[in-house]
């Protein structure tokens, strides 16, 4: 097996004068996986993503993305990741195409305009190109948000609560998009989410974070096999939460 797409070894994080949010995370995610990171509110999922996307430096431990250290090789990490934060708001006064071109340039994409057109076509939202983002619905904004995160064809895509605020159709579209990104572009996807029904449909592997520690990690298929008495992933997750 080659270099893991994402690796965390003993990662800890404490915000100033606050309790320790991450208490020694160990995690390895192989290339090509769609990883669903589960956990209650305040478990530390977003902090973990912030560390992996180089926005936060861990208080202790080592984290690598694409084989690059998130502290020592920040620039290289940024070159191989795409990131869609929860509730992202792009520049509302600019059109979708202008926003995307701006982010393509920042990502060092050759031929940013062509990359924007290609990405919008891939996501089947070319019709949104010339409209101002400020007038978009949550679903439209989310699609353009995903477009900005894959413009440079990253190796690893981080999605933080990507289904938040989406209607059922939007959730289904997002699920299809994630599957296509994984299948057609070979992206490894790391997804923080609460929507367990979607995790079961999209993810290949899940991890459960409880009070800053990863208490479970396995493939979705193995997880369901290990808990034959539970009807759904949701029941399995609730059982894990109750026992840890």
């Amino acid at each position, binding site marked *: 097996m080659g270099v893991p797409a994402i690796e965390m070894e003993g990662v800890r994080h404490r915000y100033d004068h606050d309790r320790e949010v991450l208490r020694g995370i160990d995690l390895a995610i192989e290339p090509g996986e769609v990883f669903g990171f589960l956990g209650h509110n305040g478990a530390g999922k977003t902090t973990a993503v*912030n560390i992996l*996307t*180089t*926005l*936060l430096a861990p208080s202790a431990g080592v984290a690598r993305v694409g084989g690059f250290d998130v502290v020592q090789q920040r*620039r*290289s990490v*940024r*070159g191989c*990741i795409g*990131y869609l*934060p929860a*509730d*992202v*708001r*792009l*520049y509302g*006064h*600019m059109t979708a195409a*202008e926003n995307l071109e*701006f*982010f393509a*340039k*920042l*990502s*060092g994409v050759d031929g940013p305009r062509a990359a924007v057109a290609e990405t919008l076509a891939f996501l089947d939202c070319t019709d949104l190109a010339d409209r101002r983002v400020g007038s978009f619905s949550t679903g439209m904004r989310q699609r353009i948000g995903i477009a*900005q995160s894959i413009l440079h064809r990253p190796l690893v895509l981080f999605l933080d609560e990507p289904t938040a605020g989406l209607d059922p159709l939007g959730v289904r579209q997002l699920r299809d998009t994630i599957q296509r990104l994984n299948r057609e572009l070979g992206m490894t996807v790391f997804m923080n989410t609460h929507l367990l029904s979607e995790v079961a449909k999209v993810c290949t592997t899940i991890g459960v974070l409880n009070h800053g520690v990863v208490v479970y990690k396995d493939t979705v298929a193995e997880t369901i096999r290990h808990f034959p008495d539970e009807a759904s992933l949701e029941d399995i997750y609730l059982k894990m939460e109750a026992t840890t």
Partner: protein
Amino acid sequence: MTATTIAVQEVQSLCRRRVFAAFVGMLVAVTVLAGIIGWSSHNTIVRVYDEAVGLLATEGRAAPPNPFLQVPPLALLSNLAIYLPLIGALMAIIVGHLALADDQSTGIGRLLFSRPMTRFGYLAGKLAGTATVVVAALGASFAVGIAALRIANGYFPTADQVGRLAGFYLLSWLYLMTFVLIGIVAVLLTRRRSLALLGSLGVWLIVTFAMPQFTSGLRPTSSLNPISDPVSTSQRFFQITAQARPLSVSEQYKTASAQILETTSSSLGTGPVLRIVPLLALLGALVVLAGVLINRHDYAEASSDD
């Protein structure tokens, strides 16, 4: 490349949100106002002189030559040195505030800093973008100023006068950039937008009003008029604070402007170049401070929108 991309986006952003139009409109309006007030006051005193000449003639007395015709041509725009620190500096604070506050409060900062770019590149881009907007706004004011001089004086300004006016606008650009940076630094110091804006306005009040009053012996008019000679004061405290007068950037700006535009008749000792040293020092210190703060700033969290 990163800085250029950020700068272009910033200019585009300020233009789209009509901040640029408001800035240009405001500066053009105060330039026209300065021109009209300068022209009107000059015409009034010339008319008073003409009436006095008429009265003297009826009494058979000779009139002295008109002293008001000796007023320097650029004096017409001398009020700009009063309006710019008031209105221009306020607009500059808003430009600086918006440049960073939106990226912070909308969470776009999280996207930006997950890209292969440095924070210095980001700051350099923001400074270049805001500097361009201020240059363009002052450029429009400069063009209107030239037109006002042409109309009021009846001839196109000479090369020397155009050069002096350009020098005044260069000084004003430095002065306004100081306030752009104050707006930027305030955003980096606090996560609350309202607090950042209020803080910047507080600094503007101190620089524009409080400092000149203390450093000039509490002359209430000093914040509005570039009077060169301070009224002597016997109060010990204000004698001490008056020592800090060279550090009052607002006063030094007004005096240096008066020197550049040749609108002051008295000798002011120190030349305009030395007078802008405190301004340059403040500008440099703010750039360094912004550089330090942007590296420490936590872009992992969105700030408060309030």
